[in-house]
């Protein structure tokens, strides 16, 4: 399948904006709640899941065809780049390596459970999946 330059540009621009927002939100939340637990990444992933739910509820789930520019910018780029799995994995690993097994386990469970709850809430607030 061909890569459309316009779509790729949307993904790249969204990805850049998304990660800079992640940095800003993550720093803000860490300054507020402390760096003893990865609150920043948690806040980013939960808010990103909520926004993704809202977006999917508003415009519908994407089909197998190539994404439209709006979806490429907002979903694939912006929210895709805003949320992160790599920081979550590393921070969980570091908690575990520090002997904070309970905190590591809590990070995994809260991220997953609250993440899916936030996603579902977003979809529901936007009127459900069509």
């Amino acid at each position: 399948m061909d890569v459309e330059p316009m779509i790729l540009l949307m993904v790249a621009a969204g990805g850049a904006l998304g990660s800079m927002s992640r940095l800003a939100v993550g720093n803000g939340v860490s300054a507020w709640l402390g760096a003893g637990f990865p609150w920043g990444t948690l806040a980013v992933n939960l808010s990103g899941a909520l926004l993704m739910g809202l977006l999917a509820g508003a415009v519908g789930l994407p089909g197998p065809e190539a994404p439209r520019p709006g979806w490429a910018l907002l979903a694939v780029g912006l929210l895709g780049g805003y949320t992160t799995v790599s920081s979550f994995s590393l921070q969980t690993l570091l908690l575990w390596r520090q002997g904070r097994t309970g905190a590591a386990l809590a990070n995994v469970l809260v991220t997953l459970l609250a993440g899916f709850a936030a996603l579902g809430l977003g979809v529901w607030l936007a009127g459900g999946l069509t």
Partner: protein
Amino acid sequence: MKAWQHYAAVGLGSALGASLRYAIALAMLGPVFPWPTLLVNAVGSWLMGAVAAVATQRLHSRVARWQPFLASGFCGGFTTFSLFGLETLQLLNEARPWLALGYMMISVPLWLAAAWHGYRVGQRLAIET
């Protein structure tokens, strides 16, 4: 590094990471199961672990200097939690609850194992070089 340089490095890395993620999704398009995102999240976690291990042990290395670009930027933009969630929801919506459950049960251990392995490799590299 000044704040704006930090932001620029992260933004640039993430533009690259997100574009590569999209290209991989296009190249692997087809099967119902979201293999591209699974692959991307595992590889991104591995790289994140490796970069962190090298950067903590060698504070003045090139890897440490490039950490904002590589870690928060590239790995952060490459991997994605929101699309992982959306894909799980999509499987549920297509009445494939077992695939959705399987996707979740495979993803998280794989991410963590990848970060762990990347960290070990990074530690070894930092000692040897």
